[in-house]
């Protein structure tokens, strides 16, 4: 009889408690089953002390990734309320202990029930006008399932209240990740590629808690960056839903954007014989045809969608057979990667949609509507002992021509391009070639010599610029020596 209390919803809790009282007057003890599977609703995260947090209190992001665990502390000389606040000393870019500070606060117990709140709030001020990289919650160094972050929060030198709206609190019935933040040096002149004017600074945070403000409204979720995308795909490919965000309007009338994880969304595919999508936003293309992928958060339809037109299976690109020691690979399933790459550089004026298509056996990069884009290397590749770049290209239309520019970015490690001519400047060099005579519906392989201006400078290869097309698929991009 008691067992069924477990299924009662929240509104029945007073009645349940009442029953407990009645039952406790009996002499028998309660069985374990009578304990409701609910978690504390504690709102406070930090007041003058951490509230119910792990013994570590602050758990830094990975120092190996540049996080500086020294920057975190508390300050008994500064407080918005009470006697103490959290003090963050943001390192300068050259700090040997790491160039940013960031981490999480975790619930000491099994998690909290935050479903009765609509926002994370805190007060903050800084030693100078500055911008914090991100603040949010839901990062628990476990599954990070319900992560939420508000980015680029501007701080002033006076205490101000900040609000991070909760996208759908009904999902947060057992959340351990109560607070997250990260902050890097302040870029004084707003020159993202020049760290020389970046400075460290200090900021303070106080009165961190969850609240039910009642004044957060007009949720406007987005997927795919709020854009209606179209993509050709193949049976067997897997696509991840990205570009997730949600805009809210606060009591101040201000719109605030948070970035959030897939777990807050409900996804749908209009034709599940073409593609299915799971709760994590992973799309599996399973049949030929056309389907529309859409999403919603808490019943509110998201802006943005993806129309997938799938044809049969994509043939696997020819498997490279060079010995690995002859190769420095940028993108292939055969060789280890020489560097991390960015396939979405976001060049101004670019119309390109770039998608990583993953199949069980391989991954390929699919380009749609390309005018110009590039593959940017995180670390430069020294190809001074290598002679060629290999690339495989697949097209589904006739008359496709693709321009390839292999770029050496020189000793200063910066891409420098003349904004009028598009040609390399400063210490940059490149070699350009057009890929033509492409076979339709099959892979065409190219061996591009590292010649021209690269013949004498190829020890800092930093990018491959890709023009034209406009629709094609690339695989097996690597530098090699025969």
């Amino acid at each position, binding site marked *: 009889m008691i067992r069924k209390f477990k299924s009662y919803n929240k509104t029945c809790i007073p009645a349940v408690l009442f029953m407990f009282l009645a039952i406790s007057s009996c002499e028998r003890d309660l069985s374990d089953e009578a304990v409701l599977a609910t978690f504390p609703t504690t709102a406070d995260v930090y007041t003058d002390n951490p509230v119910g947090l792990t013994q570590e209190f602050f758990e830094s992001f990975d120092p190996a990734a540049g996080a500086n665990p020294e920057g975190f502390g508390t300050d008994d000389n500064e407080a918005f309320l009470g006697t103490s606040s959290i003090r963050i000393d943001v390192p300068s870019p050259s700090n040997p202990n790491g160039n940013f500070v960031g981490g999480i606060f975790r619930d000491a117990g099994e998690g909290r029930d935050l479903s009765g709140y609509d926002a994370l709030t805190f007060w903050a001020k800084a030693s100078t006008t500055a911008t914090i990289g991100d603040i949010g919650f839901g990062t628990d160094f476990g599954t990070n399932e319900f992560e939420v972050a508000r980015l680029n929060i501007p701080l002033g030198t006076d205490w101000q209240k900040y609000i991070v709206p909760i996208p759908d609190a009904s999902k947060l019935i057992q959340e351990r990740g109560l607070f997250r933040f990260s902050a890097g040096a302040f870029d004084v002149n707003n020159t993202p590629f020049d760290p020389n004017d970046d400075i460290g600074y200090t900021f303070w945070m106080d009165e961190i808690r969850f609240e*039910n*403000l*009642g*004044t957060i*409204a*007009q949720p*406007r979720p987005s997927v795919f960056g709020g854009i209606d995308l179209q993509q050709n795909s193949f049976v067997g490919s897997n696509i991840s839903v990205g570009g997730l965000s949600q805009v809210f*309007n606060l*009591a101040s*009338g201000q*719109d605030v954007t948070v970035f959030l994880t897939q777990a807050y969304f409900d996804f749908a595919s209009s034709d599940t014989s073409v593609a299915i999508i799971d709760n994590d936003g992973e799309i599996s293309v399973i049949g030929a045809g056309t389907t529309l992928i859409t999403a919603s958060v808490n019943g509110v339809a998201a802006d943005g969608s993806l129309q997938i037109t799938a044809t049969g299976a994509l043939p696997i690109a020819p498997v490279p057979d060079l010995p690995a020691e002859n190769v420095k690979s940028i993108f292939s399933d055969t060789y280890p990667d020489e560097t991390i790459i960015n396939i979405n550089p976001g060049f101004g004026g670019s119309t390109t949609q770039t998608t990583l298509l993953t199949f069980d056996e391989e991954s390929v990069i699919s380009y749609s509507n390309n005018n110009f884009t590039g593959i940017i290397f995180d670390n430069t590749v020294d190809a001074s002992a290598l002679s060629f770049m290999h690339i495989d290209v697949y097209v589904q239309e006739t008359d496709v021509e693709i321009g390839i520019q292999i770029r050496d970015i020189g000793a200063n490690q910066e891409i420098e391009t003349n904004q009028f001519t598009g040609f390399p400047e400063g210490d940059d060099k490149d070699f350009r070639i057009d890929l033509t005579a492409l076979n339709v519906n099959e892979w065409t392989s190219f061996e591009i010599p590292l010649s021209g201006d690269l013949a004498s400078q190829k020890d800092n290869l930093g990018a491959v610029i890709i023009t034209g097309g406009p629709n094609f698929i690339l695989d097996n991009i690597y530098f090699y020596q025969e």
Partner: protein
Amino acid sequence: MKIRKITECLVFLWLLVIVSCNSDETQTVANFDVLVFEDNFDVDGAPDPTKWTFDIGTGEDQNLVRWGNDELQYYTNRTENVKVENGFLLITAIEENFQGSTYTSARLKTQGLFQQKYGRFEARMRLPFGQGMWPAFWMLGDDSDGEEWPQIGEIDIMENTGDNPIEIFGSIHGPEFSGGESISKKIELQNSRVDNEFHVYGIEWGEDYINFYVDDELYNQLTPDDVIDETDGLGEWVFNDRDFYMLINLAVGGNLPGPPDANTVFPQTMLVDYVRVYQ
């Protein structure tokens, strides 16, 4: 809704006045419990023509330029801008080029159809949000005798600017206290907003007083003494003189809210659940 500006000074003065009101034990109190006008918007389609008529355009036919406030919208009676559906009156502001304006919306009134002196006038509404939105539920005095604004009087039961989703204000206009000099008071909602839930906005109006309320909260009472205080004795209480009619509209832009910005959502719809009048 003529030109107006609410100054902090005005609000501050009102705080003083209210304190004096509260100490006055001889206020007139009346009960308005006889329902004399009701529209619950239960019939889908155009608004009931026996209750509502429209202002169309930008005010030129009433010798007003952009309704006297530099408002950006062109009012129409098209279904796109105004209709009754699912028990609500829907007034929708649309961003579009129309008859030389860049937005369209709607303005309904009971002029010539229902007019009354004194009573309780209230509407249950959900407002739009965002910079440049300017919804209102208000009243004008009957001018069929040839008298002109502001002598005919104006009672703004509820106004809001969309950049402030937790605050509305009620105002009166008359000779020596019109436009930017209107007598006005704001009320901030507690843990609540105007754009994601319905609230009842109303007045109780009798001889020599107008009470303003939101839901069950009375937030202001105005009397002839207030007009005298506010205008150094120059103003005239014009609210015992004539019948008034009701107006409901959604303006876009204009002197008070300023123009919409890139974040303002269009189209956007204001909902009215009911309008009721008691005497």
